[in-house]
């Protein structure tokens, strides 16, 4: 069987990378308090970043993939059904992680404390869903 996903990982597929950049730009428009947002592969490679930047620093992508995997492991362990999103709240902002539905990719978004958590959750869900549908 020829699996194109296997031949072309998302972070090296120009089509996927382009759509991911556009999805993150939309997220930025909908959430003025968005700081950094990254689309990453399940195994921690950066697919796209907002604001756009050329850099070898993929630390957020690696850390987000670890946290996403640990969260999903906990949900499995406790038999809690399907995982939704992960929120880290801090005094200066919050971080939201959620799977791109049906894809081996994750959306990680960092908001400053002006953004309400509720809005971050709903906006990120829409962007992740639209992104998945557009690939």
């Amino acid at each position, binding site marked *: 069987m020829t699996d194109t996903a296997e031949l072309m990982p998302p972070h090296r597929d120009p089509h996927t990378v382009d759509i991911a950049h556009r999805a993150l730009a939309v997220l930025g428009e909908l959430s003025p308090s968005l700081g950094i947002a990254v689309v990453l*592969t399940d*195994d921690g490679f950066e697919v796209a970043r907002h604001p756009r930047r050329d850099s070898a620093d993929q630390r957020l992508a*690696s850390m987000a993939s670890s946290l996403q*995997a*640990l969260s*999903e*492991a906990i949900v499995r362990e406790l038999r809690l059904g399907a995982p939704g999103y992960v929120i880290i709240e801090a005094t200066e902002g919050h971080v939201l992680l959620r799977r791109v539905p049906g894809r*081996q990719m994750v959306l990680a978004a960092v908001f400053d404390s002006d953004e309400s958590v509720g809005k971050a959750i709903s906006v990120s869900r829409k962007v992740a869903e639209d992104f998945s549908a557009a690939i």
Partner: protein
Amino acid sequence: MAEHVILFAGPMGAGKTTAIRTLSEIEVVSTEAANTDRETADKETTTVALDYGEIGLGPDDKVRLYGVPGQRRFDFMWTIMQERAMGLILLVHADAPDVGSLVVEHLREFEHLARRGGVVVGISRSDLTGPQPVNEVHAALAGQLPGVLIPIFTVDPRDAGHMRMTLMTLIANIETRTALTAGATE
């Protein structure tokens, strides 16, 4: 000693996840993700956070087995996990390009743990290459860490006997060291 925390480290594809699955008496906690880096290791999945398993040794001793991701971009997990471990099983696959320097390179990353606790090196996948890598590793370690005694085994992480033997050697190593340190400070 009631509980030991043992860390499995080493490059991607060395067999850390396999070893923990072989040893563990509980269902392992794993964090495998689809592997998009097939050039480094041609396997379906790769560990992105940790593996966790447990094995009892005798009636009172429980060993907690943690595996870390092999890829360097996850080295923050190396730092976190290193702090809570007391021993290291460093696995390196014999079919890697330069086994000797891989062992030295990874041992350097876990030097803090290596100095504090015990270390055993396991060379895996040597059924695919023949026995030469062990000599290579002895030479590399003797050059890099002269005077430090580190047991080196040829292991198959799929083999429970091999992995138990490796683990027991490490535990004996840690306990000897603990006893010596206690003796020295009395």
